[in-house]
Structures are given as C-alpha cells and as structure tokens.
C-alpha cells in the first residue's frame, strides 16, 4: 500500500491523505509542507520569496524515499506510508511535500511522520531554489557530520 512519487503537477492533499485507509488503522497523520513567502532570517530581517523551484536526482531520490519508508515501518508501529514530493516551479502556498502515515494508533503515526520529514530533508537528493525580488539562490542543507557519505 505504500507509495512514493515525484510530481511536477499540483498535489491534491486530500487524495494523498485518503488514498489508503487501512482497515487495521485508526489514524492517518499527514504533513502538508508548502512554499513559504516570508522567511525570518537569524538577524531579524525578513526575506520575501516570489516562488520556488525544486530539482531532483530522480532515480536516486525515489530509491532513497523507498529506503525511508522501509526503515520507518521497521522502527514505528505503522501500517502504510505515502510520500509525494513536488518538482519544478511552485507558487507560494503550493504543497512541496506531502507525507501520510497510517497507523493503528495516532502516537506512532505522529512520531513516524516527524522522523520521515527529518530524514527526507537530510538524505533524499532534492534541492530547492528560492527566487526573490532581484535574485535567486539554491538552498544548501546542513552538511552531514562525516564527509560525503551520510551517517546511518
């Protein structure tokens, strides 16, 4: 029942969240990450984004998403996971990533969803470019502790 996809189309939140409603489950926790317009910097100034562009190393991104789902199902008492990440140009407010976790009980679903988005942002080869008035830049994530290879 698990699914993981990359999409250049606008993602319909409800269709992801309710794609599977396993009979053994009682809760689905769904994260809807979307493009933010105003970002407060550490120095207190506010950066205003016009739109975002996401790019992926697609075959590897799909492999890494599959690995995350496999690990989440080993570490948490959950039944099904769906992940869709948007690529290409996103307008402000459009969903960039949706992660749905169905579980018999909500607590495991919340914990697994938090773990999945944290790991996705660390390991899945997708990059975000922010376009603002008068400029643009690729966002670089936090470099891993060890050079090159990512820790387990």
């Amino acid at each position, binding site marked *: 029942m698990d699914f993981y996809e990359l999409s250049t189309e606008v993602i319909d939140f409800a269709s992801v969240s309710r794609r599977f409603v396993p009979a053994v489950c009682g809760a689905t926790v769904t994260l809807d990450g979307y493009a933010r317009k105003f970002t407060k910097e550490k120095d207190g100034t506010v950066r205003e984004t016009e739109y975002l562009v996401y*790019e992926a*190393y697609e*075959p590897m991104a799909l492999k890494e998403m599959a690995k995350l789902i496999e690990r989440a199902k080993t570490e948490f008492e959950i039944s099904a996971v769906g992940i869709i*990440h948007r690529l290409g140009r996103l307008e402000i407010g459009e969903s960039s*990533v949706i992660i749905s976790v169905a579980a018999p009980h909500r607590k495991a679903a919340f914990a697994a969803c938090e773990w999945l988005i944290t790991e996705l942002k660390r390991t899945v*080869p997708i990059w*975000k470019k922010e376009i603002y008035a008068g400029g643009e830049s*690729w966002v670089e994530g936090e470099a891993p502790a060890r*050079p*090159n290879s990512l820790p387990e």
Partner: protein
Amino acid sequence: MGCTVLFFGATADATEKRQIDLDLEAGSTVGQVLENVRHSHSGLNEHKLLVALNEEYVSLDTPVQNGDTLAVFTAVSGG
C-alpha cells in the same frame, strides 16, 4: 576506463554543466574523482559536496569501476 559525472542544482550552476565524461586511471576512488572534478571546475570549491556512486551514498575510498555514474551535489534541501 571512464565514468560519467552528473551535476544538479548549485553544482550544475557552478560547472555550467549537467554531465561530463571522464577518463580515469584504473583503481581510482570516488575521492580521487571528486578532487579531479574540483580541480577542473573551480566554482565547486565554494561548496561542501556530497557524492553518490550509481545512485548510492558511498565513502570516498570506494573504488570506481568502468562505466560507473557519479553524482556531485550540495547538501540536499528538499521538503
């Protein structure tokens, strides 16, 4: 022997390339290929880089085989 190197996002901008093909000495490691690429594309030196070999994260001492594909990219920023 040879390998293909792919660039994405900031590394594609820094090199102004999406892909290059390299001739390698037999026994070259991922780390040696990365140094080779940094040397020929100095714009990459402004970035902390990750490397994947055939779509997997690997350590820098992993040997590169003929026909392998390396991807050179900055720390990921999806989500």
